[in-house]
């Protein structure tokens, strides 16, 4: 019996710190229970977002319990019955939930073995578990299923039972549990959920972020038999049939007039705008050189990224049902408990009277409209006389009203000596905060709450604390420089809703850092790979860079006209997965990325195919951000509210992607895979463009117009 026991805090509650999310959810029975029919039901507070987490957690459970993965039933998270694991974000689910399940299952297994020992009259040491059967030497046997008794796990976890050190399922490819339903088109998504008597709801969002309703003529909408719901500037319709709700919404739109102040910045000068705003500033990292050498010169460059949309293929959707003063919500939120807290604040209802259940949505890449649509459904269902209501957002609202990944400006400076070696490095960044997630502020952050008759003030975006950080995520370079200063300016005006988009500030910070160091290497006539290796001491950083370079044939690459190679590297959050990407591009009428080689080290791997899938998907999505994407707006309205105006990379444009999972030291803890490739991919593409055309594009996206406009 061993365990990572240490005392938490110094407060009166001197309970030992437990691993992962077990610490905040200490009852074993919260996590799992055995069912007599030969199944183990597992409750994680982390949710399936399309990233395959349910499959990875099932592998961990199967290993610790010695059962076949097919016996593991992953129960979708619900506030009624699941551990509170806050938000499924930050590439932390395997660390937090996987670790908790590992210890919870190890302890559950030990408790069941004790019960089996008593039942069989054999010592625990003489028992082994084979797919849930508990067999004694000599042949006597029972099973988890025969012994299934919830009281056995109705106790606090101790984490004193060490998890296994060798694994049968963890580390091997596992088939996605959710894929068969999706391949056969069976109901699986929240959009597919329906209840008897359900009404269809639609919400009429204002035409621009600061618009206020002036007048409303809803007669035409009501003439269709739809119910019109109004609470201040929050407007919606309810209808028996979906197409009637859609039609009534358009009639309501035609009958609404709005005042629309021009509150948006100049979309073509976003970096200037960011730098001119009131800010809250802090030094993120700083160290000075011991004996400061005099720089020969100082190099400066400013980088920027635009606002980016989540642009999931399926729009946000939720169902709500009021009954006997209680509210039930089904939605694809990343944080069901946090959402519940903000629903309670908005609706003036005790949180205990609200149940939020997770049902899968379309791919989730951060804080999108999933929480907002849950409030929409709750508000419309309140007018539905105890009938359930399903609300689906329009494509336009999905692109214009879900929170956006915020624009950023990054100013870099390097003092270099006569040989071009860096003496001092300075990084300053300007950005809105990267989180307006619900459940964390004194007032709600849900969209409709700002439009009610008695509205809540919009909450200014904040940044998660360091070391992970938000806007300042990955702003500190891993390269060894004699002197360093990193300053983070949180922009305090927020004309567009900003919140977490996959990798947060890391995408732009890594793009900027890795572009700048490439130019430093180039100025010295030094190979960019060699420059990076020379400035890094971490062996795992070396390993991914060398692996990507080797796989991509970096050393043997040949110059071809209009073609280029580039590399980018980062360790996500400076404490997560290591990732290096080599891009090969061809610059014809537009930039075509032909190949991306991704080398990634995520520590211990649960599902190698899952890691490869996440890394590849992350790289492709980042290539789309890098080459194509920017939220467009005039001074009043967002104008990129359709796929025509917000294009993403298509099948014919997607590069070949090779992912190599790099071996790590045996004791390396597992870290997430979904957000490691974004920054390195952007940088690798930008560096390849520089290699091909001699043009350094510093403002994303790298479009033909941008290239033409850059000297």
């Amino acid at each position, binding site marked *: 019996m061993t365990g990572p026991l240490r005392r938490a805090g110094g407060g009166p509650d001197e309970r030992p710190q437990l691993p992962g999310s077990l610490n905040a959810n200490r009852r074993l029975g919260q996590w799992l229970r055995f069912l007599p029919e030969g199944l183990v039901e597992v409750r994680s507070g982390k949710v399936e977002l399309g990233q395959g987490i349910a499959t990875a957690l099932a592998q961990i459970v199967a290993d610790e319990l010695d059962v076949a993965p097919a016996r593991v039933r992953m129960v979708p998270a619900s506030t009624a019955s699941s551990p509170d694991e806050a938000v499924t974000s930050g590439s932390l689910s395997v660390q937090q939930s996987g670790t908790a399940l590992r210890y919870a299952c190890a302890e559950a297994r030990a408790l069941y073995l004790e019960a089996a020992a008593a039942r069989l009259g054999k010592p625990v040491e003489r028992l082994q578990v084979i797919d849930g059967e508990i067999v004694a030497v000599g042949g006597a046997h029972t099973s988890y299923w025969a012994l299934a008794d919830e009281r056995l796990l109705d106790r606090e976890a101790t984490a004193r039972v060490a998890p296994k050190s060798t694994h049968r399922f963890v580390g091997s490819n596992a088939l996605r549990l959710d894929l068969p339903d999706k391949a056969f088109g*069976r109901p699986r*998504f929240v959009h597919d959920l329906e209840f008897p008597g359900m009404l269809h709801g639609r919400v009429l969002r204002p035409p621009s972020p600061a618009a206020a309703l002036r007048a409303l003529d809803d007669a035409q909408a009501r003439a269709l038999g739809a119910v019109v719901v109004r609470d201040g500037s929050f407007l919606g319709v309810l209808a028996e049939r979906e*197409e009637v709700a859609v039609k009534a919404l358009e009639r309501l739109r035609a009958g609404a007039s709005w005042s629309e102040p021009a509150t948006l910045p100049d979309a073509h000068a976003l970096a200037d705008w960011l730098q001119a705003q009131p800010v809250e500033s802090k030094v993120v990292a700083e160290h000075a050189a011991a004996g400061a050498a005099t720089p020969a010169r100082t190099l400066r460059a400013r980088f920027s990224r635009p606002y980016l949309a989540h642009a999931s293929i399926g729009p946000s959707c939720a169902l709500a049902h009021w009954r006997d003063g209680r509210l039930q919500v089904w939605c694809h939120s990343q944080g069901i408990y946090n959402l519940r807290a903000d629903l309670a604040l908005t609706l003036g209802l005790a949180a205990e009277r609200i149940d939020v259940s997770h049902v899968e949505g379309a791919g989730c890449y951060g804080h999108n409209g999933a929480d907002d649509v849950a409030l929409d459904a709750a508000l419309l269902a309140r007018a539905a006389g105890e009938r359930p209501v399903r609300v689906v957002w329009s494509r336009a609202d999905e692109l214009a009203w879900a929170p956006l990944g915020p624009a950023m400006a990054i100013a870099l400076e390097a003092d270099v000596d006569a040989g071009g070696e860096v003496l001092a490095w300075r990084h300053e960044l300007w950005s809105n905060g990267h989180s307006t997630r619900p459940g964390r502020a004194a007032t709600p952050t849900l969209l409709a709450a700002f439009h009610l008759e008695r509205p809540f003030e919009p909450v200014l975006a904040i940044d998660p604390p360091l070391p992970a950080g938000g806007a300042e995520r990955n702003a500190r370079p891993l390269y060894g420089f004699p002197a360093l200063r990193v300053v983070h300016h949180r922009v305090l005006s927020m004309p567009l809703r900003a919140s977490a988009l996959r990798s947060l500030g890391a995408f732009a910070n890594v793009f900027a850092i890795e572009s700048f160091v490439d130019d430093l290497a180039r100025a010295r006539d030094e190979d960019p790979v060699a420059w990076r290796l020379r400035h890094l001491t971490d062996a795992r950083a070396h390993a991914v860079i060398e692996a990507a370079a080797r796989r991509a044939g970096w050393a043997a690459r040949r110059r071809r006209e209009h073609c280029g190679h580039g590399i980018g590297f980062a360790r996500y959050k400076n404490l997560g997965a290591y990732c290096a990407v080599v891009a090969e591009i061809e610059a014809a009428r537009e930039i075509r990325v032909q190949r991306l080689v991704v080398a990634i080290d995520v520590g211990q791997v649960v599902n190698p195919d899952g890691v490869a899938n996440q890394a590849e998907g992350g790289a492709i999505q980042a290539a789309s951000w890098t080459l194509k994407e920017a939220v467009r707006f005039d001074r009043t309205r967002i104008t990129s509210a359709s796929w025509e105006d917000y294009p993403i990379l298509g*099948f014919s444009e997607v590069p070949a992607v090779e992912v190599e999972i790099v071996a790590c030291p045996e004791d390396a803890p597992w870290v997430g895979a979904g957000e490691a490739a974004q920054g390195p991919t952007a940088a690798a593409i930008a560096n390849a463009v520089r290699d091909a055309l001699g043009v350094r594009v510093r403002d994303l996206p790298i479009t033909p117009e941008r290239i033409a406009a850059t000297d």
Partner: protein
Amino acid sequence: MPTIRLDVNGTERAVDAAEDTPLLYVLRNDLGLKAARFGCGSGRCGACFVLIDGRAVASCDTPLWAAAGRRIVTLEGLGSPEAPHPLQRAVIDEQAAQCGYCLSGILVSAAALLAANAAPTEAEVRAALDRNLCRCGSHNRLVRAVVRAAHGGAE
């Protein structure tokens, strides 16, 4: 409301809905066929694709009157767990999805392609899928799955 007769997955179905109702809502809400999914409402993403007389068509953009009297096949009609279409088997073999929301429409586009061209090149597969959007970055796995299905499951 008029009764409209539809030929869906080889079965005649009667639907009481206005003639201009988008086929997608009828498939999902009246006929309980959830594979075709709402993505944009204007035929620009492919999530709602179904086969109409063998062609991949946006059901969100197709009024009932235009679908009546024609052969409609949804992903459910292509195959089942008991008798999967080669594309469905290949998608699982290639683990070709992340969220899977776009998957139904992509398989429908691929089925239309394979019906017309039994051995497409990779470039032909990509061109055939260009009307479908995927946001998770599963494109290359999906292309491999279609090529695999065309080769009878072997890769």
